């Protein structure tokens, strides 16, 4: 929370905790929503896929932020829960013989999203159970084990074999319908993702300013102190895993509508690490941080990709004998991303949301900002 503008103050706790504390914030949010809604008409259509990728990363990193940033439970296996969500949704759409009227009404996919959320949440609670006894590094180990057990073993070896399709389930176009809308173009995927992100943000924000959120933050700050204050630690930790898994399941279920197929290589360990990287870049313990981190990471990927493609085009046309460089550039991309994470953590340890906070305060307190320490 940043400082309020000069001369604005509240007299009750309820006022202080409002969604929109001042009219300026309300106006800012409305402008943002209008901009988001108008985005497909403002930018080139090739950026739509970038935008919904950002939204997917936001959805997936939401659960990671909840666990790491608000409840202090470090997780390095979130891709497993996203995978459970994606596969649950895909299999429900593909394999369950739905009655005709439900298919026509477009109820199948929305129902599968909710079920995916619950399946991923339960799977996440299962691997959250050790958090009752262990914490810190040992919890990292169990969540990593969740990744290794879920994706390479259960999903690749058992789930993918159902129906005899081999490695990936492909969803025929037109199958993914929400009500009267068939999700078939980049714009529709984008709108769908924006709605999901806004809904999840509202849920997360409301959870965090209620009793549950305060309990999570108490556990993060000092779990033993929280226990002596009467917080049911195990219950709230498992609840955190449940909610984080639910968000992950929704993210997974959304992503199949964008990809039109689902296969294990979209849920590798790399993605678990990437989402933790996103919240560290954006700022741990900040909801805006997820957005900043996702935008930063996806943009860095996109720019690296564009520069690599551009470079290899130039190389191919003017120096054909240097063709081998292009294959090297792909790996250079990965190295550069690793270095970006490292230098971000070294030189900007508070994340981007801290800079945003400073900027906001500067304008809120202008011209009488306190410039001491």
């Amino acid at each position: 929370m940043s400082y309020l503008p000069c001369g604005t103050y509240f007299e009750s706790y309820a006022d202080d905790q409002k969604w929109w504390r001042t009219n300026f914030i309300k106006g800012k949010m409305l402008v943002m929503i209008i901009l988001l809604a108008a985005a497909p008409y403002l930018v080139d259509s090739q950026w739509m896929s970038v935008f919904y990728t950002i939204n997917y990363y936001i959805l997936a990193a939401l659960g990671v932020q909840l666990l790491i940033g608000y409840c202090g439970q470090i997780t390095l296996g979130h891709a497993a829960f996203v995978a459970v969500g994606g596969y649950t949704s895909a299999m429900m759409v593909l394999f369950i013989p739905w009655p005709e009227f439900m298919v026509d009404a477009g109820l199948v996919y929305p129902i599968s999203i909710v079920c995916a959320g619950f399946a991923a949440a339960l799977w996440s609670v299962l691997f959250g159970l050790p958090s009752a006894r262990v914490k810190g590094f040992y919890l990292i180990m169990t969540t990593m084990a969740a990744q290794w057990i879920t994706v390479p073993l259960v999903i690749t070896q058992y789930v993918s074999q159902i129906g005899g399709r081999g490695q990936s389930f492909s969803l025929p176009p037109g199958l993914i319908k929400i009500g009267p809308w068939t999700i078939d173009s980049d714009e529709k995927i984008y709108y769908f993702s924006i709605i999901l992100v806004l809904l999840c943000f509202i849920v997360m924000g409301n959870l965090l300013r209620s009793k549950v959120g305060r309990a999570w933050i108490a556990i993060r700050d000092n779990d033993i102190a929280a226990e002596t204050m009467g917080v049911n630690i195990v219950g709230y930790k498992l609840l955190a895993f449940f909610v984080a898994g639910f968000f992950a399941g929704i993210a997974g279920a959304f992503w199949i509508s964008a990809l039109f197929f689902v296969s294990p290589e979209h849920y590798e360990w790399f993605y678990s690490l990437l989402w933790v990287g996103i919240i560290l870049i954006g700022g741990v313990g900040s909801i805006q941080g997820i957005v900043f981190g996702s935008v930063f990471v996806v943009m860095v990927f996109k720019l690296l990709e564009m520069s690599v493609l551009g470079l290899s085009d130039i190389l191919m046309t003017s120096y054909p004998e240097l063709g081998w460089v292009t294959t090297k550039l792909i790996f250079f991309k990965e190295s550069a991303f690793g270095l970006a994470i490292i230098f971000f953590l070294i030189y900007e340890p508070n994340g981007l949301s801290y800079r945003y906070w400073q900027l906001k305060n500067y304008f809120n307190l202008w011209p009488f900002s306190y410039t001491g320490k």
Partner: protein
Amino acid sequence: MELFLQLIVTGIMLGSIFALVSLGWVLIYKCSGVLNLAMGELTMIGGYVCLAFYERFITIMPINYAFVLALIGTMVIGLILGLLTERVFLRKMIGEPVLAVIMVTVGLSFFFKGMVFMFWDTDTQIFLPRVFSIEPIVVGGIAVGAVYVWSFIAAMILMVVFVCFFKYTRWGLSMQACADDEMAALSLGVSAKFVYALAWAIAFMAAGVGGTLLGNINGLNYSVSGLGLLVLPVVVLGGLNSVPGAIVGGITIGILQNMAGGYLSAYFPGDIKEVAPFIFMVIFLLFKPYGLWGWERIERV
């Protein structure tokens, strides 16, 4: 019964490599408190560097000398890389939160992986001509590949060297002091920065030799880093800050992995061999969270 014995023996020999790599991991954790997730990539780098040296040396000298010289070269490169990594990346992270330090090691693993594949491509590469003969060594009806036996011997020699280094040299003693109580060690004139650098250098050297041996067994590709990642179950089993724990844990995980490969793969499709240590680790964590000989941390508000 014969299969059982054979799996056990091969498991012990494979496990000794894991033990060697885990030794490096435990050292870093003991001395500087860094939980290193880049160990798999360090292992992989070692393998590739050794291969590069071997391919140079093989043209001018017989196989045995070339391999030993290549191993020594790998250790020298590991020393330099370890000192550099500590100086450039990790020293700036002293005093930062645990998660940030872990993510720096994750970033390191991306960086190293990209670098390795940039230089050496992703195809599987093998040591040619073969360093160890394909003929297995048969003792009392148990056949063990020569590469396993030599790996075991090499890993054991290196482990003895490292343990002697900690026990009897001045540098080793300063590392022990720093691991035991950093404040007290600092006040007695031990340079903590030097100790951290040394720990990283030793970890790189141990991982490099481990990677070379693993590369000789299965060929070098990305799966070597997966095997290197097995240090995590190993250290959880042995306790995070226990050197004997790392050795016992490594050998146990080696046996367990071989057993799973020998007996369970008939019932489970796919790579149960790779996943079994992690499943074991989760169950083990529930019952004995601090490992066999790890320090139990008592917390106060």
